[in-house]
């Protein structure tokens, strides 16, 4: 029975409560001076790894919970938050502001991080709320050749390094069973992420935080995708009221619906 070494990738994104604005050049959203926080789906994965340790649900125990984030210097804030929630240590991969990585580059980076850290379980958020790609976990599983259980709503451990993951699908739930090492991505109903308490925030400041560069993982920030244009959705057209059935019928005919 192997002890778990969990790797939890986290991303710093614009806070979910902020309404994003498209920048003037229409190349992306305005990030300067906007409140940022940890991607909510990543909070779920940090919480899940901490719970696996606290509830002792893994028979081999949890040896290490390492959070990793690639981003500008401020990404360290979310790493500290994750450590305040209970992660043991953090790795910050410095990426210049505005030089965002694509899911494939992130997956390649994580692959080499997994090898360096000797992780045997990677718990990722299913997607980030800024670009909503929902690809990184799947690509990482492909690169590593590990089993993947995406959008988990429940994670249980069995004998002989097996993990059962329940996921919500159309019309019911589906349970997958796989052997470690594996990849899990989290869905919204997996758990209720805790709020880091003040003493834990203080303790997190003393936890080790490694600083690395993309070169340490043999990655460059090349882009395969090109953003042509970013636009706000068109404003909703107001509806109209009709007085009676005849009015409705004539309106529908006008619109060519009947």
């Amino acid at each position: 029975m192997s002890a778990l070494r969990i790797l939890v990738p986290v991303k710093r994104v614009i806070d979910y409560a902020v309404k994003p604005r498209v920048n003037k050049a229409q190349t992306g959203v305005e990030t300067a001076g906007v409140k940022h926080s940890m991607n909510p789906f990543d909070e779920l994965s940090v919480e899940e790894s901490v719970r696996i340790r606290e509830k002792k649900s893994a028979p081999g125990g949890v040896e290490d919970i390492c959070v990793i984030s690639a981003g500008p210097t401020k990404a360290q804030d979310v790493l500290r938050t994750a450590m305040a929630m209970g992660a043991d240590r953090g790795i910050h991969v410095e990426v210049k502001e505005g030089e965002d990585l694509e899911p494939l580059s992130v997956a390649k980076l994580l692959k080499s991080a997994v090898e360096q850290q000797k992780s045997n379980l990677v718990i990722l958020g299913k997607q980030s709320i800024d670009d909503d790609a929902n690809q990184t976990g799947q690509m990482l599983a492909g690169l590593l050749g590990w089993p993947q259980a995406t959008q988990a709503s429940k994670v249980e451990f069995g004998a002989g390094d097996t993990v059962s993951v329940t996921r919500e699908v159309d019309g019911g739930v589906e349970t997958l069973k796989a052997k470690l090492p594996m990849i899990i991505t989290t869905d919204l109903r997996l758990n209720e992420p805790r709020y880091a308490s003040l003493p834990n925030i203080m303790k997190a400041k003393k936890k080790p935080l490694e600083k690395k560069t993309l070169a340490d993982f043999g990655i460059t920030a090349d882009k395969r995708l090109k953003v042509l244009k970013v636009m706000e959705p068109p404003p909703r057209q107001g509806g109209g009221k009709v007085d009676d059935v005849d009015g409705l019928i004539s309106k529908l005919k006008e619109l060519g619906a009947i």
Partner: protein
Amino acid sequence: MSLPPPNPELRRQVIAIYKELLTLGKDYPLGPSYFRPRLHKAFMSNASLRDEAQIRQGIARAEFVRKEIEALYYLKRYRTLRKRYDGV
């Protein structure tokens, strides 16, 4: 007339929960500028308490409020994300 000094252990607990609530208040939906004066007022109104049972009751109430605020944050986020991603 000045009040006798309070029990130091209880005083420590009160300050700890006050700081904890203050940190929580930074994320309050209506903003920390709304939260902070109200929090301060709530604590100040009980500043003259010297009866230990009553102080303990006050701390328990503050703990309750902390849990409520945490639940509020969680639910607010959960509902927003559910609306966005589950299309409900």
